[in-house]
């Protein structure tokens, strides 16, 4: 973890705003990862929900990619707001307002060049906003069951690889959970044994960000 600490410390200087090319690569990595895995997300959703999570997320991120040039030229807060509004407008389903809220809250919280501490505090506030929007909390078999553990791994000082690992592991850990929020909660016990599609999409997005930032 030595080398990653060094790069984290450098980011703590808060002097190096993400350049345009880096922003472009980040947005594009997250969008492409979700689009590539759309069928998998829909298959997970078909098992315990209404089967449209992949198609919905794909539509949202295709709209994001269409604006890639404009978005990557923006400051980080404006970029996050732009992505959030696209997701709210295009995703439909419950994931649109929830992921939209995540990005919009990040846009309010993060400066253009966040230090590690500012990033942690921003992510914490954004997760709280998602909880409020969904009237939900950790343990209900939702995206929060990935967002929260990944956040905790980051706060604990984890590097990109360990945050990514925490996110993927947390998505796997939704399999034995019983859903008590969202469409899957209608299934009660029958939701047990399936990975939550929202948890999976959250892990894919976090994974893509970590791949990109971890270099």
């Amino acid at each position, binding site marked *: 973890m030595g080398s990653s600490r060094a790069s984290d410390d450098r980011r703590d200087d808060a002097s190096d705003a993400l350049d345009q090319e880096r922003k472009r690569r980040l947005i594009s990595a997250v969008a492409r990862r979700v689009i590539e895995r759309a069928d998998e997300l829909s298959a997970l959703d078909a098992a315990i929900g209404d089967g449209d999570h992949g*198609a919905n997320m794909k539509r949202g991120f295709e709209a994001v990619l269409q604006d890639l040039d404009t978005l990557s030229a923006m400051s980080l807060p404006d970029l996050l707001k732009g992505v959030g509004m696209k997701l709210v407008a295009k995703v439909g*389903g419950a994931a*649109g307002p929830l992921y939209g809220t995540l990005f919009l809250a990040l846009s309010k919280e993060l400066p253009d060049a966040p230090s590690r501490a500012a990033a942690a505090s921003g992510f914490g506030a954004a997760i709280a906003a998602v909880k409020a929007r969904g009237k939900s909390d950790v343990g209900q078999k939702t995206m929060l069951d990935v967002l929260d553990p990944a956040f905790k791994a980051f706060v604990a000082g984890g590097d990109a690889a360990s945050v990514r690992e925490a996110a993927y592991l947390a998505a796997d850990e939704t399999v034995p959970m019983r859903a008590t929020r969202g*469409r899957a909660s209608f299934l009660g016990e029958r939701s047990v044994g399936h990975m939550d599609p929202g948890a999976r999409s959250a892990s894919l997005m976090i994974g893509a960000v970590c791949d990109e930032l971890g270099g």
Partner: protein
Amino acid sequence: MANVGIVIVSHSPKIAEGAAEMVRQMVGDDVPLAWTGGNSGGGLGTSFEAISEAIDRAWSDAGVAVLVDLGGAETNSEMAIEALPAGRRKRVVICDAPIVEGAVIAATEASGGSDLETVRRVAEELSP
């Protein structure tokens, strides 16, 4: 004073339209009414933009009561309300009530000139 407006938000355009038809049968044109259903891709779901437009169509200075079906309809409606101009935001409420019965009873109450809080309370009395 104008009557409270009613907005119906369902994942299915057919349900939203059908519920609106039942409302019209009860109250005629006495109540501003709008419905929306389906996502921006034309499938089942809800659309933030379409909900914002529906609130606008059903706008009344007495306020607007929104009836929703499942999860995303509620969260998308909440976001649409929060995006309204500050003067309008406090005059739109989501009723925690069954969508069809709630819409019909809320509209009936609204047609008698009741205020927004009363319209919401009467609709929410239907919830188990």
